[in-house]
């Protein structure tokens, strides 16, 4: 074998393929959603991606390291999506509307993500996810809430009271939609009309 061929093979074998990295992450989430963290293994993942186990271990120290990196990346992605077009100086109603739009679009465009988040919530990886998410999301949302309080648009209330009024209705509708049925098994598909009618009641509840 001449030296050029050798070098060529070397480069082919040892390049970091970003498309493949995305595939690995995508397949990992799919696999975790399907069989839980307990059922998830590096071996199964390698097979699903048609790569060798060794390739996985080049990029990730172990199974834990892989899951933590995915959780962190999803935390960042969620924070970025939620802050799209979000103006911390906007009025309370306008800002909350952008929050509803962003959260709604994020959930609709990532059908597996709500299951994955539920799994994260009840796992030891939740901390890493939240840390990354919070670091990127909290400064903006805190400024927004601070402004709304300063302008006297809403009353001061505990975070849990606020969240359960401001967002629980949205996530309830998304859940009905994802399950294809609402209360008592009635077939359900979300629409702009239903979404924004609910939003108007939420704003009525929260605005002074």
């Amino acid at each position: 074998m001449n030296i050029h061929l050798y070098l060529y093979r070397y480069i082919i074998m040892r390049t970091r393929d970003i498309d493949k990295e995305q595939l690995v992450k995508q397949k990992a989430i799919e696999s975790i959603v399907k069989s839980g963290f307990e059922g998830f293994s590096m071996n199964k993942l390698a097979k699903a991606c048609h790569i060798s186990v060794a390739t996985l271990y080049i990029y990730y120290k172990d199974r834990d390291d892989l899951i933590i990196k995915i959780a962190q990346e999803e935390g960042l992605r969620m924070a970025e999506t939620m802050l799209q077009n979000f103006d911390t100086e906007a009025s309370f109603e306008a800002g909350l509307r952008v929050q509803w739009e962003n959260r709604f679009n994020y959930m609709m465009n990532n059908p597996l993500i709500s299951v994955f988040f539920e799994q994260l919530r009840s796992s030891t990886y939740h901390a890493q996810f939240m840390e990354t998410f919070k670091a990127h999301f909290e400064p903006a949302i805190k400024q927004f809430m601070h402004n709304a309080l300063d302008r006297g648009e809403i009353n001061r209330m505990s975070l849990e009271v606020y969240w359960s009024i401001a967002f629980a209705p949205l996530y309830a509708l998304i859940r009905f939609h994802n399950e294809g049925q609402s209360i008592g098994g009635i077939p359900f598909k979300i629409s702009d009309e239903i979404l924004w009618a609910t939003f108007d009641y939420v704003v009525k509840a929260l605005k002074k």
Partner: protein
Amino acid sequence: MSIYLLMENFDHILLFKTNCKTTADKQLLQSLLKKQEGVDEWNLDLEDCDCVLRIITYTLNQECIIELLNNNGYECCKLI
């Protein structure tokens, strides 16, 4: 994403399939690898069925690690 390939050298990452299954095995490995010069970082994935041993080293080669483990009664081969 406009960059699809990044050239990187991963020759310093050595990967092995082992039969180190327990935390006791991991402790023994700890004492072996501590004494071994050239091992910058290492970890053993006990949750994996191949019990993958991953070693970061810029001086040692695969044979050297395989010999070390074999001499201490462990099975150890290159992870493919």
